[in-house]
């Protein structure tokens, strides 16, 4: 930190304390606030964010669809390659960029005649395929974590983002998602994604496909 940053820090903190009419908090008070942070209490969780089981799945589907995500139901994971072929325009040789997770890489892409690549997404990529850690029912939101096998660019750069979601991973509310995130080391990025990218910046008319994916397709098994 530069000296000026340090001086500013000192200035800002003292002005705040002056405004509050006190010195820095006592060690005991700091301890109390710390532990409130390490064992965070939930605030009011809306009823609909407490849905579970089939009710949560139904709500997830309804809300995600409302947010313009597309949902395809699969009986088994093995059906996925076949499903994806319909997305690739004839003669398009661009590879399908997939997250390097064995459940995805082990699928029989060859029989479906799909060329895959395991890498970060690049400008010009058409389709990416990733998994997610959860689907949040209350708003039809997908939760994705960054990591060595799940580069964030896959969620953002390609025109079509395909996401595998297992029904058992559908949860009620955002709070449940944070609980899942807290189970492991905090990743660099957690993406909450609700539908494909959009903008209403021209005359407040909603257009799909701004800078992120133009289509978000959720494969549910």
């Amino acid at each position, binding site marked *: 930190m530069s000296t000026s940053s340090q001086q500013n820090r000192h200035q800002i903190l003292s002005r705040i304390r002056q405004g509050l009419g006190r010195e820095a908090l006592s060690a005991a008070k700091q301890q109390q606030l710390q532990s409130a*942070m390490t064992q*965070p209490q939930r605030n009011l969780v*809306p009823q609909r964010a407490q849905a579970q089981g089939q009710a949560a799945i139904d709500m997830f589907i309804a809300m995600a669809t409302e947010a313009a995500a597309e949902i395809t139901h699969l009986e088994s994971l093995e059906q996925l390659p076949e499903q994806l072929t319909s997305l690739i325009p004839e003669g398009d040789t661009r590879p399908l960029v997939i997250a390097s997770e064995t459940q995805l890489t082990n699928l029989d892409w060859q029989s479906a005649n799909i060329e895959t690549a395991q890498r970060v997404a690049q400008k010009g990529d058409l389709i990416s395929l990733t998994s997610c850690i959860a689907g949040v029912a209350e708003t039809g939101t997908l939760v994705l974590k960054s990591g060595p096998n799940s580069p964030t660019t896959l969620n953002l750069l390609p025109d079509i983002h395909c996401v595998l979601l297992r029904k058992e991973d559908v949860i009620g509310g955002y709070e449940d998602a944070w609980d899942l995130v807290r189970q492991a080391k905090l990743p660099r990025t957690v993406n909450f994604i609700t539908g494909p990218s959009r903008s209403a*910046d021209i005359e407040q008319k909603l257009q799909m496909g701004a800078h992120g994916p133009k289509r978000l397709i959720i494969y549910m098994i």
Partner: protein
Amino acid sequence: MQINSPKFKDNARIALADANLQQALGNLKAGFPGKRAAAIGRLPEFDALRDQAQDIKNHVIENLDFYLETFESKVQDNGGHVHWASSSEDACQTILDICQSVGARTVTKGKSMVTEEIGLNDFLEKHSVTPVETDLGEYILQLREDHPSHIIAPAIHLNLSDVSEIFAEKHGTEAKHQPEELMQEARDVLRDHFVAADVGITGANFYVPETGSTIIVTNEGNGDLTQTLPKVHIVVTSIEKCVPTLEDLSLFMRLLSRSATGQECTVYNTLSSGPRQPGDQDGPEQFHVVLVDNGRSSMVGDDLQDMLRCIRCSACMNHCPVYSQIGGHAYGWVYPGPMGSVLTPKMIGIHDAGHLPNASTFCGKCESVCPVRIPLPKLMRSWRETQHQQQASPAIGRMAIGGWAWLARHPRLYKLGSSIAIKAMSIMAGNKGRLKSLPVGRGWTLWRDLPAPQGSSFQQQWKQQQNKGDKS
């Protein structure tokens, strides 16, 4: 940004006569309020969430020093850097230093009102670093050398034809007339910038001390590309944007999207916690947070403290009868509408921004929709009091108030005066009971008639009531 607030009255007059602007503002009125109401209608707990949000934010302010220090140390634990900036100049210089330390020539930017506040783009350009706005609205404005007129819908003052013209001119392409074609064109042009940029700068809607994270909330995905592709990510945010824990964040996510655009959830809510981690194949190598004060710390403990709860959702301006008639530019600086009328005088001085807290009918709509229940009319009134005390309000107004105060302290004279005035006004009004013009107050009667006082005065009625009370 140049300060045009002293010319508020002229700005407003011009805005009212500007047919293009009026057409564009029609889109605002037709959109946000209805969508917000519909979204809230589907969440019965909304008002209870607002109460909790208000409490959390008050708690944050009471312990802001603690949360700032905790956030700083968590960011450092995550491998990031925190920089403290007291003023706009400090913030701009800090950001420039980081850019120069990696030899940056171009930087991409996500939408950020704090960077507007500190005048970052001009500063960077002056020092040979080219900023490229990537939010569609902000990008359009940058091409036009224009400024946002709304905090979440920056180009709301423009129409399709404005966008069409500027794209054709600056991109050297044939003019397009469909919004989706224009958006595709911007998408194509900006892809190259995203990939080429050395540094990505975003704001933050919130920061979380629990985890040392910052959060951006966008619909386009531009903010995410801005912060993921370049080598360096700089987050520019202000000291009050704290929500202590991820649990609190959940609550604020529920409030923000519904209050702002009326969406159930904004498309991208992204939590960033530091630079890329071992094994990560993408993401920035450096993560910097610039904490901007710019007068906020001196709001702690003063009349404006409640304003530090603001989450910049824009509901107050979306519902404001003044904003929706004149648009954001008339306010003459970065923050428009009711929240701007409270903040701007603090940031540029009441001398220059004196008109803003007076540009309100005090209808109270802003306070009624504010997700963190900021008493905006009360705060504007407190600025009016400051003006009166500093004798910064118009002399004629102060004389009138002084005269009234004197009369009010002399009840006999008051009664006499008011009964004469009432009689005079009913005679002038004739049998229609309405006054078409007044010797003073032409500003009122130019646009509408003034109903003449009817029946007995308040004092008389009060007396009658008291008498009745005595008898029963």
